[in-house]
């Protein structure tokens, strides 16, 4: 047995010898929750990875592992990336948080970046995006265009990131039409085209004429096209899947962040941090405003400009919670901690938050 192990180890070292001379390159690893071909969340992270390769050329070498389940498997996948020489590792789903922190303790010389979580360490940074800023603009557009005054919202999981989006959409819509309503259906998955399509169909049957989604596939967009209603894309520009349907889409623009952080590792200036960036920093980008009249387009662009400049913060009082109690007084804005742990609806959402 011992001999066999030795033989195997030797075979392995020969096989690996070929890649040893490339050690001066920075190896960057990515863990994906879905397949890069989802045309949503993972697709955008993969676009970021490609931008990183394009801009830094032969200074970096990237690897990714796709469809990694959260939990025990994630820890192994992250450790595998760390062991195969990656010095910077991006783990791109909330559920990888504890696994990332655990592996980071074992590899103090490797830098870890975890998306959308809250646990940091000396070698674990956290990056998050203010997607909700884009949701506010969507809400404004929806309230302007909807004839029934009801939008359908396909949620993934009732976690703060998603609840933030629903509330922000609602507030944007209420700024135009105080009686606007949202119906929510939970898919309980980030990527399940069949379920997402069913949810979209059910929402249309319930009388919504605009659909927005916080799941990663293009299925809802395609259902909306078939049913001749309008929809918002998610995570990437989904215009191909609904040329006459998509109003706009919140595009997660991770590329510049990935380039910046890889450069920091190359320069030796990398430091752990916890950032929460949005339109102002260019992390949240809106796809072109299409399939809407000019006045709505103009209003959308103005709203976007105000959020980008910081003049408009979506979570600014007076805001009431769903149960009618006061959340924010007039002029008061929610702090980041409250936003990042949001687990209640604002008034007007036609759903009971599962909890």
């Amino acid at each position, binding site marked *: 047995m011992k001999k066999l192990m030795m033989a*195997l*180890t030797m*075979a*392995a070292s020969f*096989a690996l010898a070929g890649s040893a001379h490339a050690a001066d390159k920075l190896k960057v690893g990515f863990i994906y929750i879905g*397949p890069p071909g989802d045309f949503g969340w993972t697709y955008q992270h993969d676009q970021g990875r490609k931008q990183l390769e394009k801009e830094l050329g032969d200074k970096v070498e990237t*690897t*990714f*592992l*796709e*469809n990694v*389940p*959260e*939990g*025990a*498997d994630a*820890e*192994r*996948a992250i*450790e*595998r*990336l760390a*062991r*195969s020489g990656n010095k910077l590792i991006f783990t791109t789903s*909330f*559920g990888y948080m*504890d696994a990332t922190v655990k592996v980071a303790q074992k590899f103090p010389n490797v830098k870890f970046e975890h998306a959308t979580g*809250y646990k940091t360490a000396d070698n674990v940074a956290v990056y998050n995006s203010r997607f909700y800023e884009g949701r506010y603009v969507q809400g404004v557009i929806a309230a302007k265009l909807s004839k029934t005054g009801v939008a359908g919202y396909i949620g993934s*999981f*009732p*976690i*703060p990131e998603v609840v933030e989006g629903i509330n922000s959409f609602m507030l944007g819509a209420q700024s135009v039409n105080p009686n606007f309503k949202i119906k929510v259906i939970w898919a*309980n998955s980030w990527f399940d085209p069949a379920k997402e399509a069913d949810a979209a169909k059910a929402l249309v049957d319930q009388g919504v004429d605009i659909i927005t989604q916080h799941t990663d596939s293009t299925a809802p967009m395609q259902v909306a096209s078939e049913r001749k209603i309008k929809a918002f894309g998610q995570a990437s520009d989904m215009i191909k899947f609904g040329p006459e349907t998509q109003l706009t889409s919140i595009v997660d623009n991770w590329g510049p962040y990935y380039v910046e952080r890889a450069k920091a590792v190359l320069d030796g200036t990398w430091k752990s941090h916890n950032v929460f960036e949005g339109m102002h920093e260019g992390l949240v980008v809106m796809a072109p405003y299409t399939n809407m009249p000019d006045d709505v387009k103009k209003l959308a662009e103005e709203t976007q400009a105000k959020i980008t400049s910081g003049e408009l913060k979506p979570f600014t009082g007076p805001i009431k919670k769903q149960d009618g109690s006061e959340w924010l007084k007039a002029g008061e804005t929610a702090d980041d901690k409250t936003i*990042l*742990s*949001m*687990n209640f609806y604002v008034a007007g959402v036609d759903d009971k938050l*599962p*909890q």
Partner: protein
Amino acid sequence: MMRIEIVKRPQHSALFSALSPFIALLLTLIAGAVLFSILGKNPVSALYSYFIEPLTEVWSIHELLIKAAPLILIAVGLSVCFLSNNWNIGAEGQLIAGGIAGSILPVVFPDFQGWYVLPLMLLLSMAGGMAYATIPAYLKVRFNTNEILTSLMLVYVAQLFLDWLVRGPWRNPQGYNFPETVQFNESAILPAIWAESGRAHWGFILALIAAVIVWFMLSRTLNGFEIKVLGRSARAGRFAGFSAGKLTFFAFLISGALAGLAGIAEVSGAVGQLRTSISPGYGFTAIIVAFLGRLNPLGIIAAGLVLALSYLGGEAAQISLGISEKSARIFQGIILFFVLASDTLIYYRIRIVSRLSDTALKGA
């Protein structure tokens, strides 16, 4: 027109029975090499990273044991069910029930600590899995309900219950409202076997113990004889005075207990907290493991390791060769196909019936 028939062989060759796993492996290697060549990858290095690379490093062997432990535990329990003709498809649900029951102490009473916590958790998890497995067993014995359907449907009930629990009452109050419980305290963590070199935990040892005990029971005790007799012929079993109803309960209780144990081993050994989903389908994969191990607990140990290796190998191939996760899964399917096909061809042969004899049949 030709017709293909599968005909039972009057005798099966002992030589080929012994050789069949190796023939299957050889065919897999050939098919894999073809597949990887078509993908434009060097087949030798692809097969290397699939089968050998995960075994070349100690940490990776630890990971192999972590992955294999729940598969073996569950499959050993399922072998008792399947041998006795009880089709428990709901091990995934029993795993979740066990994971939940075993987590009561660390989540609800985090201050209750000491050496006795872990044994209590293991017992609770087995009780949880057994209680959950009793439902389809009772329905089958009392109402003659199809246990395949009831046990499978109960999986979804368990998944949704866990989801509700972790989002609601058991949610970590300091966790930014994310759906996770608190991290388990030190005394509620299933310890590592050999912490200096990796994170494999006692779950694998438990799996080995369970496999040996069940193997002994099946091959050396009256109970095991009863299981096999009733499984092959319920009528013959009745003449021998064996009760099919009692056996149904017994089989479901054993497989429920082991699935529950697998649940808490995964939660407390590998993850360290309850989450909305604690298993990537181990309860279903274990069905494959049980048959791959030919329903023999010792064979199941080997089968569990092989299947675990195919997961790790798929990951290694993604990194070293950029083979997509989908092709890795196709390859996993190829392995199973050849193993099961070789097994089948030992007992059956394929006869091609030509059109001529076909018309003769029709004429008759």
